[in-house]
């Protein structure tokens, strides 16, 4: 019993350690604001759950790729660290522009466009899932070290191709979920006190869009153009 609990707690703890390190701070801020701006705490929990599923699914997929030797650990690790962060910058800028409603889709009727953008801006569960999946794939040195150096060997040792990568994903999402709930509760509280819930929601959406845009530029400067190194 004790032996089976050690890898379980290790996987969750490694996930939490990854999440609270400075490296994924920028993407965590985005996830927190995106998930935290749901209309109520229940919505935040659901979006948080889908964000967690997105992350866990990404780790399971990578685990399978390694277990079935489709790619070696160094190959997949360096590929993801090198390329995902480069792709992330432009993606975040575009997402930010959509959330701010500066960009809009050029297809579908007006109602579709309006509906889609509102859902994107409101922090839909699909958006949260995609965010979780993409952010999990954007490995930084510490997540690569803990996932490829600890979770994968543990998964192989305990023949747990599914459970341990999922638990690691849950661990990486836990701090994000906690802060999202805090933001959600405090913003609702402030909105209710000042009787300006709609205005608070609007500003939360604008802040989220702006953060996506700014962090997207930061990622471009850091990983794509390599102008900055912090």
């Amino acid at each position: 019993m004790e032996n089976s609990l050690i890898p379980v707690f290790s996987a969750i703890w490694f996930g939490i350690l990854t999440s609270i390190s400075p490296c994924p701070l920028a993407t965590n801020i985005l996830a927190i604001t995106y998930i935290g701006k749901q209309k109520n705490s229940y919505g935040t929990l659901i979006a948080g759950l889908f964000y967690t599923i997105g992350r866990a699914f990404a780790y399971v997929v990578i685990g399978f790729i390694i277990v079935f030797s489709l790619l070696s650990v160094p190959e997949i690790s360096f590929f993801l660290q090198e390329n995902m962060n480069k792709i992330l910058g432009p993606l975040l800028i575009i997402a930010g522009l959509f959330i701010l409603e500066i960009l809009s889709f050029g297809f579908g009727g007006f109602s579709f466009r309006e509906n889609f953008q509102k859902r994107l801006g409101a922090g839909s569960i699909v958006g949260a899932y995609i965010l979780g999946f993409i952010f999990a794939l954007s490995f930084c040195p510490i997540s690569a070290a803990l996932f490829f150096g600890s979770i994968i060997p543990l998964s192989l040792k305990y023949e747990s191709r599914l459970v341990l990568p999922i638990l690691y994903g849950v661990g990486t999402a836990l701090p994000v979920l906690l802060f999202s709930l805090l933001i959600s509760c405090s913003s609702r509280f402030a909105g209710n006190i000042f009787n300006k819930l709609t205005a608070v929601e609007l500003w939360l959406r604008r802040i989220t869009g702006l953060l996506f845009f700014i962090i997207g530029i930061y990622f471009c400067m850091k990983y794509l153009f390599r102008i900055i190194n912090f």
Partner: protein
Amino acid sequence: MKNAKKHVFAVFAVLIFLTGTTGASEKQTEIPSEKEKIIVYYFHGSYRCPSCAKIEKWSYEAIKDSFPKALKENRLLWKPVNVEKPENSHFIKKYNLFTKSLIITEVKGEKQTKWKNLEKVWLLLRDQREFFAYVTQEVRNYLDN
């Protein structure tokens, strides 16, 4: 005759001196420090993340503070290596690297006899004392063997 004796003595003295110095230099090359080396590599990329910079700094400090004599005698070498440079990319395959890593190796002559990835450095980033103790102990294990 006296002069000849003097010359012979001088040549003899020079020969003894030369033999002595040659002997000393041979002796120096034979000491274990020239044959057996412990190399601690820190493999990094061009981009330095805060945690990566901390690992490099703490590792070097731990080694420098704990083994100044071994470092001075070149029995212990500290080598930060950028694996993104083409000439260093072979290290990725050699040590199965998947992130910034601290690797300790034992080299005898030209041959590497053993190596270890000090993976725990990533788990000890919040505790400098533990980090120093871990790196120091691992290096000591290699130096003592």
